[in-house]
């Protein structure tokens, strides 16, 4: 398959993620959208790794290793992020991010 297909799919996934983060108000869904963006990047990385490996570069596997790192970091982010969301829920019985406007001058 030509690499363009992967690029289009990834850009679509990434844009869905961005729109989700910007438009949804539920903290958990926002978080899921960020994960979607990260996974779009993962797909892109793997596709490009294959592309450059086919083009004869020996170090193309580095991009696949990068994908592993992204996955692990995403898991760490989720662990800390969900903990913070749980704290927000315990404070206000809601995970709506609109209630967060106490910090003003």
């Amino acid at each position: 398959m030509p690499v363009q297909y992967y690029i289009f799919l990834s850009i679509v996934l990434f844009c869905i993620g961005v729109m989700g983060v910007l438009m949804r108000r539920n903290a958990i869904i926002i978080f899921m959208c960020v994960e979607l963006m990260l996974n779009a990047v993962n797909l892109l990385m793997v596709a490009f790794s294959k592309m450059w490996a086919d083009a004869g570069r020996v170090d193309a596997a580095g991009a696949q290793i990068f994908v592993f790192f992204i996955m692990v970091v995403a898991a760490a982010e989720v662990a800390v992020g969900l903990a913070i969301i749980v704290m927000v829920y315990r404070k206000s019985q809601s995970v709506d991010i609109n209630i967060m406007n106490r910090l003003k001058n």
Partner: protein
Amino acid sequence: MNELQLIPLLPFIILAMASVVTILLIAFRLSHTVIQVTGFLMMCLVVFATWYVRDTLPEEVPPLFIVDGQAALFTGVIIFCVLVIGLFSYIYFEEREENPKEYYILLFLATLGAAILTISQHFISLFIGLELLSVSLYALIAYLRNRNNAVEAGMKYLVLAALSSAFLLFGMALIYMEAGSMKFSGIAEKLPQVSSSPLFLMGLGTIVVAIGFKLALVPFHLWAADVYQGSPTPVTAFIATISKIGTFAVLLRFAQTIHLQQYPLIIAIFSVIAISSMIVGNILALRQQNLKRLLAYSSIAHFGYLLVAFLPGNEAGTEAAAFYLIAYSITLLSAFGVITLLSSREHEAETLDIYTGLIWRRPVVATILAISLFSLAGIPLTAGFLAKFFVLSAGVQQAVWLPLAVLILTSVIGLYYYLRVINTLFGTSGTADVMQKTVHPFFHVSTYITLVVLAGMLFWIGVFPGLVLQGIRLFLLLH
């Protein structure tokens, strides 16, 4: 890869060990003081290790890291900051939280992230350093979870930082597609062929967004004031100094390696960001009644000034930027140190009315705050003035006139609100001072002494910059 190549990484390995050691110390239920002292010793060890490996510099540890003089310089500043912040943290957390120990694990991990940023020369190490920094910061910002503001600030930082790191990764993927390498030097080789491709430029653009977010540059500054206000004061000092030094160091290395400044488009983008940061930061600070928010907006403006030194992309610019970062971090550390010292168990000392007439009640602390504000405003005889002067002269060499003009103009605006705070310090106070009993005399005294030393350094650098400049040049030559 062999063992000899790992020797230049020794300071960073010790830094990583510091958090592991702290975890084990907590597991064995040792006291806060033990952890604080061990952390202090480990950081000193890092400094010694940097001294020990200086002869092996510059050394590349392929493919991820390069340890050169510039990296050692920025790492040194970072370690200096974490030493001071660690000291501030003791009295701050000892009074507030019954269990402040995990704070140090996160503090050292975040420091490690910033230090890794200074030595990274590959997208993988850039990403890991940045994420180590931000994931630790999420937890650090929300550390005092019983305060509403902390959780709110943590949530805001979490969503925006996660978004920005996704953008960063997307940009990296696009650049990798065009250049076929994730190493900065590999990208630089391919650059002449790909520099006009739209996907490459888009990738570069998203990376600028992510870096701009971390440095709180306009238009990515919206989180700054809320996070500065909501997080514990030592953590605010951390965000204002270490996090930004690390990010700026990696931006500098990236720009130097791929010669970013020879592309007019990039220069134009960074000029716009710098100019808008200077203007917006200073104007938003004008009417602030909250000292932490005021410092947040002032730090936005200051990184606008710093970008003016970054624009020319020459030796003088790098030198000016390094000097600026040193002066800026000492200044901010002393300002936040004063806020930490004045904060009580219930209230952060953040609204300006607390500071009314402070000079009559606590002359030493008020003088230190005044000195640091003078330095932020760029009054002569303080470090801030010389830092701005070097930035200006670096800009004049390369004739970036418009940003320079804005720099001078907005500095004058900035003078207004810094002097407003100083005016408050000298005002007549109606509030009677409630003298708190000091629970930890040793740490209180050492915090006091540190603050006095920091203020002294501001004067010393402001009057005799020779030694610092010489040191910076010496380090920057090692590349």
